[in-house]
């Protein structure tokens, strides 16, 4: 599919193509539009383009020109990865796979005419639409916090400049200062994410600001890999981290970004850095498309098709994904099922029964990695867990190091899977 520039440019074909109306598809091929170029969308676009061998026209709509993965962004906070190392360009998808990468926002979907409207004004036609827009925050879910406050108290839950900001704020804390996190209620993107972040923040502070304190206000009574994180916090960051769960008032929280205070169950604490992670819902384009029920988009696990519109597939965080957690790994796994289903529907290619898997790795401290994972199958009711595993407390240092190294291999693999 690689374009041969020397032959293409300057020939009659190039001139004719440039003069053709933008929405005319001269080839008559079936068209797929993918909205969202993250772990779900980029993977789906690549697999459809690659496996259809050019039989399907694929357009990928993604606003960022360089994609910073949310997964491993905590490792950047902790100083284990550079920001550049978690940034990826879409150049390969355009060049190697012939995907029409459009850096724009989808702002409207007309399911009747099967079109997507972009912020820049253009309209895309689709035969099948894949929505993988990630999450958006629920307004007002943390009292005192809004988008206006995200510079003072970053969410850093969509990676990139927000992550840079949070890391800089942690590094700028005065000696003995206080870092607070307001953790989100279930369900949310990346269940262990906030706690890996706490670990990485503690790791940073231990070296440069050992008397600093970390407070976590959590509306939940427990969290993913809780025993493992608490073991690690005790081993590596003893006395530094105070986790306040729902039983201790952690759900009764308000923040004041102007005064830089956090009030937990009536008690006001002055903070020097504050990470507010609000409650989440499906990326708003799903709501605009009219395919959500409550906060998420219901899907059939067999094909990841929306239960409301069979021409639309929803992947990743935005979907109501049954037993699967909202993770990058899950989105990538679901993307392959959706890609296979879309190709089958549009070109008659073979479709095998859907299978899914997920593994979430978290880094607690240097060479101390833990993981949780499972395999899944599609039932008519939901995507259902088959089998799973989780790291155990008391594991050897060697095993924890191997677990961490596995995650590095996974990161390299999934980003190759997404971006080519």
């Amino acid at each position, binding site marked *: 599919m690689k374009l041969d520039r020397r032959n293409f440019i300057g020939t009659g074909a190039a001139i004719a193509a440039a003069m053709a109306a933008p929405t005319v598809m001269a080839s008559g091929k079936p068209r797929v539009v993918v909205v969202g170029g993250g772990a779900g969308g980029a993977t789906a676009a690549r*697999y459809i383009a690659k496996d259809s061998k050019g039989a399907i026209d694929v357009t990928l709509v993604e606003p960022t020109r360089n994609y910073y993965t949310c997964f491993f962004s905590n490792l950047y906070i902790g100083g284990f990865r550079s920001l550049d190392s978690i940034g990826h360009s879409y150049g390969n998808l355009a060049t190697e796979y012939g995907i029409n990468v459009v850096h724009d926002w989808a702002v409207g979907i007309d399911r009747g005419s099967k079109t997507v409207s972009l912020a820049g004004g253009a309209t895309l036609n689709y035969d099948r639409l894949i929505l993988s827009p990630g999450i958006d925050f629920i307004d007002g879910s943390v009292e005192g916090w809004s988008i206006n406050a995200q510079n003072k108290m970053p969410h850093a839950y969509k990676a990139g400049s927000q992550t840079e900001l949070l890391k800089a704020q942690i590094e700028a804390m005065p000696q003995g200062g206080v870092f607070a996190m307001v953790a989100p209620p279930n369900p949310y993107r990346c269940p262990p994410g906030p706690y890996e972040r706490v670990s990485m923040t503690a790791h940073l502070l231990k070296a440069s600001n050992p008397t600093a304190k970390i407070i976590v206000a959590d509306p939940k009574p427990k969290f993913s890999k809780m025993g493992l994180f608490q073991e690690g916090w005790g081993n590596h960051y003893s006395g530094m981290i105070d986790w306040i769960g729902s039983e201790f008032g952690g759900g009764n929280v308000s923040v004041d970004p102007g005064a830089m205070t956090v009030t937990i169950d009536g008690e006001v604490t002055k903070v020097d850095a504050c990470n507010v992670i609000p409650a989440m819902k499906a990326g708003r384009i799903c709501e605009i498309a009219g395919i959500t029920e409550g906060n998420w988009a219901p899907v059939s696990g067999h094909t990841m098709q929306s239960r409301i519109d069979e021409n639309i597939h929803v992947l990743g965080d935005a979907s109501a994904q049954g037993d699967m957690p909202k993770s990058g*790994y899950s989105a*990538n*796994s679901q993307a*392959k099922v959706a890609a*296979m289903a879309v190709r089958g529907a549009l070109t008659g290619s*073979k479709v*095998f029964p859907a*299978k899914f*898997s997920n*593994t979430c790795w978290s880094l607690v401290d240097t060479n101390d990695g833990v*993981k949780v*994972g*499972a*395999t899944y199958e599609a039932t008519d009711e939901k995507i259902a867990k*088959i*089998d*799973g*595993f989780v790291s155990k407390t008391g594991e050897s240092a060697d095993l924890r190091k*191997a*677990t*961490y*190294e*596995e*995650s*590095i*291999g*996974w990161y*390299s*693999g*999934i980003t*190759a*899977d997404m971006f080519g």
Partner: protein
Amino acid sequence: MKGDPEYGEYLASDCKTCHKVKGSSPGVPLISGVARKDLIIALHAYKQKIRKNPVMQMMANRLSNEDIAALAIYFEGLK
């Protein structure tokens, strides 16, 4: 048992997230181009919990003999 490479290719999409088609990483070995019988032995060893990695044990656990044969022939053929 002779494996079906097309079925193997489908099953392999799950594997490729960690085991890249080209190249290996510290925690994740290269499996492209590996001799069929070696992959079959390895997957059965994970399935029977002789080999220890829990991610691989879980992945291998849901593969039938036919699935393992298909995967082995597919990966052997990858250069």
